[in-house]
C-alpha cells in the first residue's frame, strides 16, 4: 500500500493534488519526516516491508513521466521494480545503498525552518524571515528547507529564486540524501 506524506503546510494545494486518490495522504507541516528519514528533497520514496524494515531507502522516484527527460528515469521502470518486490520479494541492486546522515548544519536548518514556520503562522513575519534566512544559510541546497520556504515567503516556487537554487544545486552535483537511480 502507499502512504503519502506531504512535506507541506498548504492543505488546500495538497487536497487538489490528492483528488481521487484512495490511499492515505498525510500532512507534515513541520517536516518531521525529513528529520526521521534524512530527506532533503521530494519526491523521496522509501520501501518498508511487513516487519517495519526499510527494504529500499530514500530514492528520487516520480509518479509521472513529466520529468523523465530531466531524470532519465521512467515511472514504469520503478513500478516494475515495485511489482517484483511485492510479488517475489526481489529488491533492486541499489536497495543496499547507504544514505548519508544529516550533518549538524542540516539538522539545525530544519529546526530554524520549523521555528520560522511557527512564527509565520503566529503572525510574526520578521521573526519568520530571520529564521528562514538562518535555515537557508545552514542548508543552502536542501529543497525541503529552501524551496519549501519560497511559497511561505511570498515567493513563487517557479520564480527567479527557484532557478537560482536549481542552478547552484546542479553545479554542486545535485546532492541528495538518497538513491538517484540509474535509468
Amino acid at each position: 500500500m502507499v502512504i503519502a506524506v506531504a512535506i507541506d503546510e498548504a492543505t488546500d494545494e495538497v487536497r487538489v493534488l490528492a483528488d481521487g486518490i484512495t490511499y492515505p495522504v498525510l500532512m507534515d507541516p513541520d517536516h518531521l519526516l525529513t528529520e526521521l528519514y534524512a530527506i532533503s528533497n521530494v519526491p523521496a520514496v522509501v520501501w518498508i516491508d511487513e516487519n517495519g524494515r526499510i527494504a529500499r531507502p530514500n530514492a528520487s522516484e516520480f509518479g509521472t513521466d513529466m520529468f523523465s527527460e530531466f531524470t532519465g528515469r521512467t515511472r514504469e521502470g520503478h513500478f516494475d521494480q515495485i511489482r517484483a518486490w511485492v510479488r517475489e520479494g526481489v529488491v533492486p541492486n541499489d536497495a543496499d545503498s547507504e544514505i548519508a546522515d544529516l550533518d549538524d548544519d542540516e539538522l539545525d536548518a530544519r529546526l530554524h525552518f520549523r521555528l520560522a514556520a511557527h512564527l509565520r503562522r503566529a503572525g510574526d513575519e520578521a521573526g519568520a524571515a530571520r529564521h528562514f534566512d538562518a535555515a537557508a544559510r545552514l542548508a543552502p541546497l536542501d529543497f525541503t528547507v529552501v524551496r519549501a520556504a519560497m511559497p511561505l515567503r511570498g515567493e513563487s516556487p517557479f520564480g527567479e529564486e527557484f532557478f537560482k537554487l536549481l542552478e547552484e544545486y546542479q553545479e554542486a552535483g545535485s546532492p541528495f540524501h538518497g538513491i538517484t537511480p540509474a535509468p
Partner: protein
Amino acid sequence: MTTITVLGDEVATAAGEWVDGRPLVEPDGLSAAIGWTLKPEGLCRDDMCVPVRDRSAIEVGDKIDLAVAADTLDRPTLLDPETSAVVLGQPNATRQAALRDRQAPDFTFADLDGADRSLSDYAGKKRLLVAFSSW
C-alpha cells in the same frame, strides 16, 4: 517568570525564565512540554528512565534546564531567547537506526480529514512511503 514556547512533537508552552541564554522551566512545565519528568533515577516517561549524567547541570535551583534535558534525550535543540522558543528535533538515534539498521521510524500525522494516522497502523503490509509536496 515568562512563557517559553516548546516546539517538540507538538507545540507546548512552559512557565520558566531565560538565564544566560539557558531555558529554565518549572518541573511541571517540563512534563507538559516534552512528556518526560525528572526523577531521582533520571528523566522518566512511563516505565522508561534515561540516566542524567550531570545532575547539577540539569537542575538549576528549583528549575530544570530544558536544553540539558533535550540533550539527555539525544534530541537536537535550537534555543531562541529572542522569541522565547525552544525547538526540539527528533531523536538522532531514531534516524540513525533508519540509516544504519534499516528500522523504519514510526510517525503520526493528520490526514486531509484531520484524523491522525501512523505508519504502524499498517504494520504487516508492504508499504511505499512517498514524501511529496505542492512546492
